[in-house]
């Protein structure tokens, strides 16, 4: 029951986050700023279009005007990015797209992390011979501990330096 509740809570949180992250900027200024940071300037300065600060840059002025015009025509973000990609090449997009081989760029980090996390948890469980119910090993009840035991334990700690790291 409790596990089910936790699972549903996590699902709800994931859904809320997914909705949040899928929302985009709405007004023209925000969209210009957002899209300007998803495109590269093509003059070779290796800067984002929204941040290219070269006076007399042969490319960024024209590209910014094109961006403003495209936003004005009511095209979606995706259509605008595709337009720039078609005109200037895929390298104008500051990040890989979400389809085709580009998708691998996005998936791989999370897949590796998930695999490593799972592997670590399984390894720890194997090492400790822990079952799901035994994840927490019993801790010493310090409040009711015999003072002699405490002193002994403390001596061992001091002598072995077990607690020495940060």
């Amino acid at each position, binding site marked *: 029951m409790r596990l089910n509740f936790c699972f549903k809570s996590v699902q709800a949180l994931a859904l809320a986050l997914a909705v*949040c992250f899928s*929302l*985009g*900027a*709405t*007004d023209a200024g*925000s969209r210009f700023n957002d899209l300007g*940071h*998803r495109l*590269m300037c093509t003059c070779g*300065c*290796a*800067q*984002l279009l929204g*941040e*290219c*600060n070269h*006076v*007399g840059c042969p490319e960024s002025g024209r590209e910014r005007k094109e961006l403003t015009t495209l936003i004005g025509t009511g095209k979606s973000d995706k259509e605008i990015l595709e337009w720039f990609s078609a005109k200037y090449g*895929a*390298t*104008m*997009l*500051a*990040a*890989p797209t979400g389809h*085709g*081989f*580009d998708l691998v*760029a*996005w998936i*791989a*980090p999370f897949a*590796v*992390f998930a695999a*490593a*996390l799972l592997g*670590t*948890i399984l390894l*720890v*469980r194997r*090492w*400790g011979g*822990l079952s799901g119910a035994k*994840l*927490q*090993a*019993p*801790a010493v009840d*310090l409040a009711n501990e015999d003072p002699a035991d*405490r002193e002994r334990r*403390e001596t061992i*700690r*001091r002598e072995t*330096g*077990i*607690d*020495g*790291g*940060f």
Partner: protein
Amino acid sequence: MAAFGSFTLLIALALAAYNLLAGALALRLLATGQSARISPERLADTARRAGIAGFLAISATAFALIWSVFTNDFSITYIMEHSNRALPGAYKFSALWSGQEGSLLLWAWLLAIYGFVLRLTHKTDVKLFAYAGTILAGIQVFFLAILNFAAPPFALLKGAIPDDGNGLNPLLQYPEMVIHPPLLYLGYVGFSVPFAFALAALMMRYPGEKWIKVTRLWTLVTWLFLTAGIFLGMHWAYAVLGWGGYWGWDPVENASFMPWLTGTAFLHSVMMQEKKGMMKSWNVWLIFSTFLLTLLGTLLTRAGLVSSVHAFAQSSIGTWFVVFMGIVLAVCIFTYVLQRSHLKSEHHLESLVSRESSFLFNNLVLLTACFVILWGTLFPILSEYVVGNKVTVGAPFYNRVAVPIGLFLLVLTGVGPLLPWRATSFKSIRRNFVLPVISLWTTVIVCLVAGVRPWKDGAFSTGDFYALVAFAVSVAVLTAIFSEFLRGAGVISRQTGRNLFVATWMLTRRNTRRYGGYIIHIGVVVVVVGLAGAAFNTNTERELAMHDKLTIGPYTLECIGFTQDSNLNYNSEYAMLDVYRNGKKQFQMTPEKRVYLASDQPQTMVAIHSVPSWDLYVVYEGTNPDTGQPIIKAFLNPLVGWIWAGLMILVFGTLVALVPSLSPAAAALRAPTPAVAPAEQALKGDQ
């Protein structure tokens, strides 16, 4: 001087080769017990002395190059390409690392310095140091071979010798560039030492974990250099490039960050080996990887595999690095396979909720971050190879993938120290975590009230969301760390009668490593707060005529003039801007643009006014060719100063961690009341 430099470079190579061969032979004789005409101990000592002499030879080479820069010896191609007569003295030193040949020489020189110190302190453990010294000699042979045969720094200019040189790259003519590259290189090169010790300990099946204690100082110092080098690079990018940011995820930046991540992972997980004899294989591979990543970074930026703003460093020596990396990897794998039985763990993790597992997860996250950066850096090559389509992997990719990982790591920074070794109970978790959790949610509420809201005008802002999470988690982590300090200091204060400040000092002195580590974590948190401020950066750009005004945030900038200046090195144009706040004149800023005469290249000199809450960052972008009036771009960058303050704390924490702890006896002697046992403190700290 060119002949002298070339000669000493060749001598250095011969000495390093002798060090490698004689050292290897001596160690082989020692290991097998075979007899020879010369005793293996004497042979090993001659190898060690050759290493020391090699340091002198490389120092002489470096001196020859610096001398040539200062005497404007333009018959040497390198000097002609990287210096000029009017170059200020401090920047003449920068010429040493401004080009490929010089930077490789710097690498070899620093490696020689590290090797020199190592060989002088060989009595700590003669055999282990002999192995490590021989491995270092192998690395040195590689760099000296490149310097002698592929990238000679003393190559002579063909044809007529010009009166003046091309000058130093304008980007490098900034005070930090005199110290940033050497620090970064000290970090890069320094990881050769723990690598050499790890490989040596594995080769000789070194008993126990003493080698870790021996190398701890090296690793921590190296890590400190790399950290400081990276941050100085960030500050340089911020102050010189004029785009208002400090980290652009450029492949060269990534190349320095990757070994930092694995090095940081090593510093954490090595404690598990030291204290509990765990994760031995893991640690060995972490330090191998760190060293290989320093080489990979050099390969990426010098072989032209990926496009970078550091294009000046590209050349054809990539093949050398590929071959060397292959050899290093093969040696590592071979040694590991041969000696892996020596790396069996003495203990295993007992619980998922313990200090050990927090170290494990910390390593997992750090390595994932490293993978993300490596993946992002190499993906354009992979994409071109697989589908024939080159793509850009820029800031949006890293911000989306790496920032959540960074935040997770931040959470672990706070959680880890609150967990005891071995295992814990829900009761103690609740007790230790209640304050941090309260502070976390309080911060969320305060931030939301103060206007840090992920939702603005009906749209969701990822940047604001990350900033909100970063602020909240940072405060929670600080609460956790400070409560750890207070808990321990409270016990000492009660037992000694000293006030809390003195008690905190005493507590730190008793376990500098642990509390130095906590201070480092505080520094990291302060840096994160500074980074989170970037979500609220604003900027504006205007062409300003005389007495025109530009407003950004609470500031109004009034143009009171623009003028030109020149000296032997550069011509400059700059604007004079009076800055007003609440109608009152506060200060004046003079953003500048320079054109260096020797190279005819422009360079921005940003004017920055920094206060704890933000930086007012003003760029003179040049003049409008039609009107002749200056174009000014102003940024208001919140909390940037916190990044540099965080670095200071981080450096301080590392220095504290480097100081040996007071022994219990010494601590007792210094306390006014006897036998201040850390019992209560340690027990409480363990819960």
